[in-house]
């Protein structure tokens, strides 16, 4: 139950002082670039930029170590699963086969397959620093303001901020209920059988969900009394105005996206093929 989640880390750095909207836009541009490309050169370039920004942000690896361990485990499992299901995927994509050694049946190790796995892993590594940084350097209350600024309806932006605001509360409720139920002998750990665990889990979920429905009632009444949503716009207490640095970063970010797409697609394929 001691799982940790990422949260805002207060610090003075150029990345922290950027407006939340800028970081959100850059994060979106960056993930789009990393999502679309499979070009190893572009991925490596993006990775270098990611690491550079990470160093500038003064966030220490130690502070996000737990999540890195999680991601590495996830990546490893994913790579193994891909290999088991499709050991010839690389050969299919790159259209050639340099066999290093055979294992059994269709399972052999080819340079193409290794290269494909390298690309999948890189693709992941490129996005991680951007996403992590966005989360740990943007204050949650500023996040709603940023969403609103990039054109999301303020009511939706407000519900995102409600979600962020209430996650700790609901987590605490969940712990209380789970401990109360465990004190009564209801076990949801690995020791129980799967079906029994499912049944036990629901005895925690039910009180949690019904207390939530009440909470929705209370909060919406409070907001209604304060005339929420009667006007077209609203102002945000935590909004940061755009400064020169924001414009520079935005222009640079867009250039990187365009450049990476051009490099990726000018030869007509998402993949960079070193085997030709």
């Amino acid at each position, binding site marked *: 139950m001691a799982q940790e989640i990422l949260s805002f880390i207060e610090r003075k750095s150029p990345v922290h002082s950027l407006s939340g909207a800028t970081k959100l836009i850059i994060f979106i541009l960056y993930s789009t670039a990393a999502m679309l490309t499979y070009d190893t050169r572009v991925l490596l370039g993006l990775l270098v930029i990611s690491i550079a920004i990470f160093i500038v942000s003064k966030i220490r690896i130690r502070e996000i170590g737990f999540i890195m361990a999680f991601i590495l485990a996830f990546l490893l499992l*994913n790579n193994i699963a891909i290999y088991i299901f499709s050991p010839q995927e690389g050969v299919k994509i790159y259209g050639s086969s340099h066999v290093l050694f055979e294992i059994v049946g269709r399972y052999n190790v080819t340079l193409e397959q290794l290269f494909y796995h390298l690309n999948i892993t890189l693709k992941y590594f490129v996005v991680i620093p951007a996403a992590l940084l966005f989360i740990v350097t943007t204050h949650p209350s500023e996040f709603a303001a940023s969403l609103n600024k990039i054109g999301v309806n303020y009511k939706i932006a407000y519900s995102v901020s*409600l979600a962020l605001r209430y*996650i700790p509360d609901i987590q605490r409720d969940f712990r209380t209920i789970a401990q109360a139920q465990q004190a009564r002998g209801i076990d949801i750990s690995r020791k129980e059988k799967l079906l029994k665990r499912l049944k036990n889990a629901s005895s925690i979920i039910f009180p949690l969900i019904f207390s939530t429905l009440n909470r929705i009632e209370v909060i919406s009444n409070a907001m209604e009394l304060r005339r929420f949503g009667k006007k077209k716009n609203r102002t945000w207490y935590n909004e940061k105005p755009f400064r020169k640095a924001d414009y520079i970063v935005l222009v640079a970010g867009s250039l990187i996206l365009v450049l990476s797409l051009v490099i990726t697609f000018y030869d007509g394929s998402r993949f960079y093929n070193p085997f030709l």
Partner: protein
Amino acid sequence: MKRLSIKTIVAIGIGAAVFFVLAKFVAIPTGIPNTTIQTSYAFLALMAVVFGPIAGALIGFIGHTLNDALSYGSVWWSWVIVSLFIGLFIGLLARRIDVGNGEFGKKQIISFNVIQAVIQAIGWGVLAPILDVIIYAEPANKVFAQGIFAGISNIITVGIIGTILLAAYAKTRTKSNSLTKE
């Protein structure tokens, strides 16, 4: 957007938070990598039926994005879109189930389960793998196996927990025409 009531907005916010907590703490591992039995989808189905398609779609989208971002550090967009799809369509199709008036009998149970099974089968079995292949260029048979497995386990969890949740919710509502003249 004008018609978005305050209650829906709050339901989206709090719903996404609960979805996040459930996905994080009450997910039961199955042994297949990155695939767990998600109790959060039963909750999503309940919220979609009670608060409508917009709430369902946004709870799925925001909740899933937050969970991916805060616990993995990056967002697996193809599956996030599936959560949005499931919330939206369960909300749309289950409109006829008038659970707010305390009606949740055999007929409603059957139609709810048919709706959720069909939508989740499309979502996990077709939409998720196709998006995985398009966005991440993963091997088709791997993502289809993952998708089908997630689909089956989610259909069963929503079928059991979701149905019980809705029935319990209906009991907390006052039935219309429930008063009799003495």
